[in-house]
């Protein structure tokens, strides 16, 4: 067989090609390669191959068996499932939207790989505002984490205020008792300069940096950093390039969630809001156990949009639901061992001309690192296409897409309301929050709806959202995007 061993590739077809497309592709190829026409020495051989390909693919039953075979024989470490909001895009003179749900999961073949060790740094804000219960809770939670480390894990701890101190350097672990004592020694005092802490933490993780490890930074802060944001973001880019992911954890109400989002999503991580101080412990526990369940790290999606198509939004639904910045290379984070990495893409499609039979939404590849076998750089091609049709499709989108979008629309309303407040459009923002509250009530999120209503009222009086309310609504609606809510588990 030729290097293009897949019948679809041989004929230049998509795996979901229609019978008509297969017939046409075969026809075109046969015309070019027929021994009577072509003089190329390899033509006959190729002609026989496309003949065989056509024989298999044109028979529905044989095609099915063949599809199954290439699926199980595929050497790809991940399987990619794609679902679209509709089966065809419509040929007409208006722009339209198409949604695609892309789900990545570990191939069955690789699902029994050992758990990679962790190389983690906790960067803890010890500014004056952390004094008291906040810092105490952080201390206890950190100590608990240390106790759970496996012998081959590495942990370092950095504290910062106006400057940073390495409380516990990475490297050989000393006695847990010594570590715990050091954690207890932490004292609050000073300002919040995130860059100081971040840089020190980055250096600690880098000392032990290996692609066989899960390299991670958890930043805990309760305040705003001033003037060093750009430095922080540049550092995040460096961290991402070295394969270090950053998780941001905001406590209280005075931290800058927009900044923390930007900082973390650049590395494939995300930010979280701790509204009740007691939740820190549980959050860190969950984060920690998810770091112990990683199949692939540094997953990134590189897409080139088709002509007349624009990727307009990207949402990660699971794990850690968040909106992701749209760029040519999107860092998606990690693929968990026994769950899917699900993202939802929104494509803006300009009017399509009649002669396009199949519209390319985007082409590209997914690249990732497998910690259990990092020498193997994995790049998996991905192609998102849709057939075109004359009549507008009236079908309902598949359930998972419908569900995801219904929650995303809530998150978007919240984002819009915030933007309107920032622009001084108080009336609009208030109305929008009320509508959001109606939708939240409808899905049974009563507390969140209540918060939205309170904020809607507040805007009318103060022209501002409360720092607490806006974070609650943002992170509340964001967490609704998690498909796990609906009891969706991976089928394996």
């Amino acid at each position, binding site marked *: 067989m030729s290097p293009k061993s897949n019948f679809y590739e041989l004929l230049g077809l998509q795996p979901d090609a229609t019978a008509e497309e297969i017939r046409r592709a075969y026809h075109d190829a046969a015309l070019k390669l027929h021994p009577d026409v072509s003089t190329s020495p390899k033509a006959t051989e190729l002609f026989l191959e496309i003949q065989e390909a056509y024989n298999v693919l044109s028979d529905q039953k044989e095609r099915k068996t063949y599809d199954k075979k290439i699926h199980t024989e595929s050497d790809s470490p991940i399987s990619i499932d794609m679902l679209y*909001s*509709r089966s065809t*895009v*419509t040929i007409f003179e*208006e*722009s*339209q*939207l*198409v*949604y695609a749900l892309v789900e990545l999961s570990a191939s069955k073949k690789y699902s029994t790989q050992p758990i990679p060790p962790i190389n983690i740094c906790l960067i803890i804000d010890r500014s004056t505002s952390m004094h008291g219960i906040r810092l105490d809770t952080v201390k206890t939670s950190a100590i608990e984490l240390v106790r759970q480390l496996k012998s081959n894990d590495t942990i370092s701890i950095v504290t910062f205020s106006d400057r940073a101190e390495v409380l516990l350097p990475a490297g050989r672990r000393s006695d847990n008792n010594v570590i715990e004592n050091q954690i207890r020694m932490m004292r609050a005092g000073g300002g919040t300069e995130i860059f100081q802490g971040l840089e020190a933490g980055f250096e600690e993780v880098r000392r032990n940096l290996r692609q066989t490890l899960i390299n991670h930074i958890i930043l805990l802060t309760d305040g705003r950093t001033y003037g060093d944001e750009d430095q922080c973001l540049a550092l995040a880019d460096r961290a991402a390039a070295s394969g270090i992911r950053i998780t941001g954890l905001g406590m209280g109400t005075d931290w800058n969630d927009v900044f923390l989002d930007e900082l973390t999503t650049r590395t494939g991580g995300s930010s979280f809001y701790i509204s009740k101080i007691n939740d820190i412990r549980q959050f860190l526990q969950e984060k920690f156990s998810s770091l112990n369940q990683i199949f692939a790290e540094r997953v990134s999606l590189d897409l080139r949009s088709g002509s007349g198509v624009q990727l307009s939004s990207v949402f990660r639904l699971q794990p850690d639901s968040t909106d992701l910045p749209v760029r040519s290379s999107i860092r998606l984070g990690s693929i968990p061992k026994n769950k899917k990495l699900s993202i939802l893409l929104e494509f*803006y*499609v300009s009017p399509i001309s009649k002669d396009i039979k199949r519209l390319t939404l985007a082409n590209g590849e997914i690249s990732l690192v497998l910690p259990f076998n990092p020498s193997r750089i994995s790049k998996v091609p991905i192609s998102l296409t849709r057939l075109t049709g004359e009549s*507008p499709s*009236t079908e*309902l*989108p598949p359930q998972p*897409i*419908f569900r995801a*979008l*219904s929650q*995303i*629309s*809530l998150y*978007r*309303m919240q984002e*819009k309301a915030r933007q309107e407040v920032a622009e001084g459009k108080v009336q609009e923002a208030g109305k*929008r929050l009320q*509508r*959001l509250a*109606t*939708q939240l*009530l*409808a899905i049974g999120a009563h507390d969140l709806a209540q918060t939205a209503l309170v904020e809607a009222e507040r805007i009318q009086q103060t022209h501002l959202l409360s720092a607490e309310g806006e974070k609650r609504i943002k992170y509340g609606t964001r967490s609704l995007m998690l498909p796990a809510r609906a009891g969706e588990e991976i089928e394996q």
Partner: protein
Amino acid sequence: MILCPNCLHKELVGAIFCNECGAQLVFSEGVPTGAIRSPSKGLSDNRSPEKANDNAAPPPASILEAKVSLNIVNSGEILPLKSQKEITLGRVSGGQTVIPDIDLTPYKAYEGGVSRMHASIRISNNEVSITDLGSANGTRINGRKITSHISYPIKHGDILTLGKFKIQVLLRKN
């Protein structure tokens, strides 16, 4: 462009939810045509005469006059709606202060999970819409659950499900 039925905001074709108000924009298309009796045919011949003998069923004349009628799917009875602007549907039971305009109790509404104040139908000149009034078991249009307190347009032949209680909407064209 598609128009949001709730806030009239314009959205691109292919959008599933309104960006302005979060209302659902895509609904399943009507029920299979075979299941629908066109009002003129269904009312004038085979069906209504025998049903008209029942005391519960209103006289055919009023059915023909009414712009909107409801076909109770279980019993086959047809209730014409008076041409008022808004009509509430529900059931009457003891100790109730607010009484719905149309009481569905005679049609086994309780067993069907209909709330006392379940939904309201609004009739305007060119549109008929339904709003769920925060009922316990919800309302569906052609099997799609609707969000309460938001009005959704309905058209001829649509099946409304209040709880498990099925009603088909019959609109008279003029």
